[in-house]
């Protein structure tokens, strides 16, 4: 359907990858159906061996009727999935990202900024609630992984602060 759906699917898969890592699992398989012609089948797996963890993903079928499992091997999970990077700040909720306090004002932070622990990095809006997301640590903003106005899924990486 749209770019937006694919982005949210990618964020969903990234969230699964994060769950996998955090709970030390080897595999998660999910089937999600949102009505006619909108289904997503994902299998996220990793090797538990010391070797770099490949992430195998059945590509989301939107709006294709059925998912064709395609294994995507990558040399390093962290390279392809920013949520796995140690400095990742992830979304605590589903919502809309705002990088500025208000339209027309400078962004909360930009790449290269030094931030303090607790400093506001961005806002995620859900149910008309403006949730200020603050930095979990002092450091430098290395990457901003979301755009102003873009949707964020639960667990999706927002920024890298190291």
């Amino acid at each position, binding site marked *: *359907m*749209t770019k*937006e759906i694919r982005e949210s699917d990618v964020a969903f898969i990234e969230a699964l990858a994060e769950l996998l890592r955090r709970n030390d699992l080897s595999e998660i398989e999910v089937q999600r159906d*949102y*009505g*006619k*012609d*909108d289904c997503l089948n994902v299998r996220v797996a990793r090797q538990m061996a010391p070797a770099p963890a490949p992430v195998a993903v059945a590509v989301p079928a939107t709006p294709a009727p059925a998912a064709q499992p395609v294994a995507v091997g990558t040399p390093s999970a962290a390279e392809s999935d920013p949520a796995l990077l140690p400095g990742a700040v992830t979304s*605590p*909720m*589903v*919502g*809309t990202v*705002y990088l500025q*306090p*208000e*339209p*027309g*004002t400078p962004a909360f932070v930009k790449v290269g900024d030094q931030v303090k622990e*607790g400093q*506001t990095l961005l806002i995620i*809006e*859900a*149910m*008309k*609630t*403006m*949730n*200020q*997301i*603050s*930095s*979990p640590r002092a450091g430098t903003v290395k990457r901003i992984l979301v755009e*102003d*106005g*873009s*949707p964020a899924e*639960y667990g999706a990486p927002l920024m890298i602060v190291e």
Partner: protein
Amino acid sequence: MPDWSSGTERLILESVDSTMAEAARRAVAGAAGPLWIMAREQVAARGRRGRVWENPVGNFAATLLMRPPESPVQAGLRSFTAALALYDALAGLSGRADLLTLKWPNDVLLAGGKVAGILLESAGQGGAMSHLAIGFGVNLAAAPPPEALEAGAFAPVSVLEATGVRVAPEVLLDALAAAFDGWEQRLAAYGFAPVRRAWLARAARLGETITARMARETLTGIFETVDETGALVLSTRDGRRVIPAADVFF
């Protein structure tokens, strides 16, 4: 009437920049909450995403500062308890529940017009919420002039012009604080389900066509329901869409 001695504090200011700004300052200073901050005058009132909020004298402006124990995912559920509390307070004081409806997620409509604005701001870190501020602006005595409106916005209306009832801000504060406390207790005891049911029972345009304007797209569809997380569910030509953040029009 609320039992102001039971731990909920109340502060009434003659004038302030905005009650949201005052709540943020007091949160940083360590106020424990729950604390209601009401102001007779706001000189820099604001709405969502920096929109100007007109606040003529005689209207209601207050912010509830609280420190809920849950994760920020739960913060948005207060959009629904806040809207229900304001609905109940206005229904009780005006006697005109027949004129009141709710629009997703927290707009209270009186005779189909916008009588109030509710703004929620939470701050938190690492999945924990440090505080939540819920701002209420209610057109008790006067509605802002139409030229202050954005295109497509709901026509503003005041309680006085729509019902003929004059409500003093302090009186609404008592009723709203009591009603909010009641919904908060239900949320704590039984979760979102009874709040959701009550909200849906008061919703405007349920089962009808509405439009949801998001940051990057606008969707029109049948307003199917509000899901268990509070998200708006629209049934569109392209399927069912679950929407956590949007402006709703109809």
